[in-house]
């Protein structure tokens, strides 16, 4: 049975220190509210997994919540660097960060293998790149028919995957519309799946060929309007490109970053209070 419960409880019950956690969403539907709740609850030693770490992992890393990062592209899209990620890798601040680095194609294959509960993913990839020389997780096998060499990656099976979506129903079925990146695969690969949603409805209409995660793969659903901000939710609100630009300034400086997190994330009770706190600061 899918639990329907407040985000703070979902995180408290299902994401312990040391867990491997994938907050997925490719530009779209990034579960920012859930990431902030991990910070509020002071999680430590997380193994963070995500194709594109984005601002939410910059925040988690900068707050010292992460021990290890599995990823394939770590930048502020269209803006530049993730300064907190850089600071952790370059200067071990606030703590050293282990790196398990892939290409997008490799991460996608690893999630897909995880979703199918196969132990590894297969791709014709990692060709002409130094990545395999630095990541022992990237290996090669020979095709049992043609003899050719192909790349492998170990399956990704996060302890917890967290997504944001537009709608769930009271049974825990989750409907997603728009760009889905590797969300479906990350969801099905998880040992436990938490989904924050813009809206909980009584019944979802039949999705036919649309994207729906059936309730028996969903562990917990939390109602969290605007839970993807500053990312976006197709059909609900747009991406806050301006905040992505402003983040570059906030995150560049350790002190300014820490103060921002203290004030707006640690100093607020939940996502609604977080948004209100930002609005007060901007007013």
């Amino acid at each position, binding site marked *: 049975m899918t639990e329907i419960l407040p985000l703070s409880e979902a995180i408290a019950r299902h994401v312990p220190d040391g867990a491997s956690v994938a907050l997925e969403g*490719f*530009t*779209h539907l990034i579960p920012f509210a859930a990431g902030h709740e991990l910070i509020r609850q002071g999680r430590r030693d997380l193994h963070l997994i995500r*194709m594109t770490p984005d601002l939410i992992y910059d925040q988690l890393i900068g707050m010292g919540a992460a021990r290890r990062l599995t990823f*394939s*592209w*770590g*930048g502020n*899209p*269209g803006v530049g*660097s*993730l300064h907190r990620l*850089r600071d952790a*890798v*370059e200067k071990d601040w606030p703590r050293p960060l282990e790196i398990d*680095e*892939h*290409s*997008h*194609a490799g991460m*996608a*294959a690893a*999630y*897909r293998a995880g979703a199918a509960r196969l132990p590894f993913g297969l*791709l*014709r*990839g*990692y*060709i*002409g*790149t*130094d*990545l395999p020389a*630095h990541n022992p997780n990237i290996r090669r096998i020979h095709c049992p028919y043609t003899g*050719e060499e*192909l790349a492998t990656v170990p399956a990704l099976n996060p302890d917890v995957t967290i997504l944001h979506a537009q709608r769930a129903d009271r049974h825990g079925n989750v409907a997603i519309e*728009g*760009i*889905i*990146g*590797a969300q*479906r*695969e990350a969801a099905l690969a998880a040992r436990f799946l938490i989904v924050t949603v*813009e809206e909980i409805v009584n019944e979802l209409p039949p999705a036919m060929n649309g994207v729906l995660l059936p309730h028996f793969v969903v562990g917990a659903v939390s109602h969290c*309007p*605007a839970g993807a*901000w*500053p990312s*976006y939710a*197709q059909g*609900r*609100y*747009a*991406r*806050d*490109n*301006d905040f*992505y630009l402003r983040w570059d300034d906030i995150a560049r400086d350790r002190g300014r970053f820490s103060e921002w997190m203290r004030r707006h994330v640690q100093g607020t009770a939940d*996502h*609604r209070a977080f948004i209100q706190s930002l609005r007060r600061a901007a007013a």
Partner: protein
Amino acid sequence: MSDYSRDEMMTVAAARMLWNGCVCFVGIGLPSAACNLARLTHAPDLVLIYESGTIGTRPTVLPLSIGDGELAETAACVVPLPDIFSDYLQAGRVDVGFLGAAQIDRLGNLNSTVIGPYAKPRTRLPGAGGAPEIAAHAKQVFIVMKASPRSFVTALDFQTSGGHFEGRSKSGARGGGPAVVVTDVGILKPQASGEFALAAAYPGIPADEARAAIGWKLAIAPQPETIAAPTAVELAALRALQARTAAAHREPVRLPIQ
């Protein structure tokens, strides 16, 4: 047309290389601008694939990120990202893939991973993203980078994706590798050895200026072309696109929260 920027020249030059019906794997920034300019001018049936999963996208404004809502709303379809990489890119269905990087060497190998040693980098860059497999499997790769001796180097700190590296033909790579490097000082193409040489100049930018901006000893291709300046039509289309984009991105975000 006398008054245009070097960025505009680059964008127009890249756009002109795309043909109608061409299937492009598009990155954000200049490649996205070039592809959409081509689509809005001479190549209306250009097929744009963004790695976020949108196929046949026809945005009216340029996306700021690779997964903007505009891309999904105007796409022929939106598919899971793993499908894009396995069933489209790896399957050899992409005609042109675009890449840029922090560093490029004379063979078109690229670095977008680190400056300094991998384990303890001086500068940690964003990393590979789609690059290794785009470089391997797109039928052609178009590289777009502003030229400077810091970027066009004799030796990469890290090879993120492969150009015309030794052993490419036996590596499992299915594509032809980089066909061109579009810079702000001219256009480089690979010679028989795989080394990139100056193959076309922009109006008013002498070969010496290109040589000075490239860290390796830049050869000049036999019979280099001269690229025509952007036409009034091209510039108007590009500037209108950018103006629409700026206006769209000024609209405030309204959240469903009090």
